[in-house]
């Protein structure tokens, strides 16, 4: 069983990306032997009202059991509590908020209220550090990357909050993990999509220093080809049980409870 916790459907505004339709995503999942994907609606990340993409997302995944919805939650827009309740009712594995794209203070009052509400609803909150390499972004794509300090602040702000952070690199992960108490760090999960493999071996290092149970399989597809996350795992020396932890069991045990 392989779960991709970090996938998107829908067009990207800053460059042409193939395979953004639900069918395209499913084809890529089949190619990469991914059984299930947690899917966000990519266009609405850039909308003033991101939650308006949620209805389409729910409708789309309703036809395909391999896709699970990760609806948008914008705590600065009226109706977010209803969107959060709907996400919990529909069994969404997580809700997502991208404060840097929404124009929100990433650790400000709105985000802290959202963090508390997600904690109370037992709904993990997903946040992306970035979508693309900063060096290649479109000149008009000026949203800053999610700061590590904001993740530390949010995980400290509510003791029931669980955070799933995607597209983080080694430095970011280490800064947050070792800047948190063990109890706080135990409520943080990291996808492997942006962590380097050999010869730098950042992923192998982090599995040793931070612990294998904190990592989940994610790809960032279709903005990134899913083969990259597969290759990272194939280059590690993992026991089958360890690999299963990253590929599905950590997400199931930690985020789907």
């Amino acid at each position: 069983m392989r779960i991709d916790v970090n996938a998107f459907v829908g067009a990207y505004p800053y460059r042409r990306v193939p395979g953004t339709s639900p069918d395209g995503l499913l084809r890529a999942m089949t190619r990469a032997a991914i059984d299930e994907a947690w899917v966000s609606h990519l266009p609405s990340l850039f909308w003033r009202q991101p939650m308006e993409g949620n209805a389409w997302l729910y409708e789309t995944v309703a036809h395909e059991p391999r896709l699970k919805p990760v609806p948008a939650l914008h705590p600065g827009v009226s109706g977010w509590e209803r969107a959060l309740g709907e996400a919990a009712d529909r069994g969404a594995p997580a809700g997502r908020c991208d404060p840097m794209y929404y124009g929100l203070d990433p650790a400000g009052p709105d985000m802290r209220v959202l963090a508390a509400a997600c904690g109370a609803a037992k709904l993990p909150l997903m946040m992306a550090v970035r979508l693309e390499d900063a060096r290649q972004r479109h000149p008009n794509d000026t949203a800053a990357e999610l700061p590590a300090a904001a993740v530390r602040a949010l995980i400290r702000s509510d003791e029931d909050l669980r955070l799933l952070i995607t597209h983080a690199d080694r430095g970011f992960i280490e800064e947050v993990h070792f800047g948190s108490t063990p109890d706080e760090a135990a409520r943080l999960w990291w996808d492997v999509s942006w962590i380097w493999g050999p010869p730098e071996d950042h992923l192998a290092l982090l599995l040793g220093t931070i612990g294998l149970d904190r990592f989940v399989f994610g790809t960032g597809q279709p903005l990134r080809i899913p083969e990259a996350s597969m290759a990272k795992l194939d280059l590690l020396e993992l026991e089958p049980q360890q690999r299963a932890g990253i590929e599905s069991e950590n997400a199931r045990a930690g985020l789907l409870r």
Partner: protein
Amino acid sequence: MLIDVHAHFYHAAAPRADWRERNASRLAAGRKIGVTIHVASILGSWGRTSPIYFPSPPDVEAGNTALLALQREQPDVIRGYVTVNPNYTSHARAEIARCLGAGMVGVKLAASRRATDPLLDPICELAREHGVPVLHHVWQHRRRDWPGQEASDGAELSALAARHPRVRFILAHIGGGGDWEHSLAAVRATPNVYVDLSGSGVDGGMLEACLAGAGVERLLWGTDLTMDTGWAKLRYLERLLPPGELELVQWKNAARIFPRGAFPAD
């Protein structure tokens, strides 16, 4: 056969305490991936005693010497690019003669001087005389100067390649960050520029764009600092290309542009 046209190794004079582990990790990952030959460079002291992209002549020499030693230790799997700093013309030319004479197979130009600068001409002239390719560090669409390097972009490399039509240039790490669409458009009509697929970027659509922009006969497989992403791109291409075309990217294009005899099957 699989040739990595963009590899690096470290050495004792580099600032990293883990340089042996990183070298060993590259070779171990290469065995898993199936890399036959790592064509590598060492950029001076990697910043320890002079900047990575502006290496001093002594550091250039020490790095090249360390790479020659690695090549001697692992003759079946390692080949070298001579790294030079074109601001020191005489030294650069002497290094090229020394290292090609000792078995290196290409020239590495990092970012010590813009590709459009005439100071690169004597380097390229030597590359032509020896029949070796020039791997040129490229910033994919350089909109400004970046600290620590005098980087060139695809358009600037194309200008250099147009001045030296008989030299084969390798545009470094199309996936190394930056606007790869700009680079592909810039080199599209420059037949002596080959595109190396290395870099940490694994953007959806990038490989299709490389095939459309440069054509399968001008693509070279490589890894640079992330072998996982290199392997990912190779796996993707295995689904995208028929076996004959895949072989071009895996090694046949490289075998064509490096000197005859550089690789085992040559």
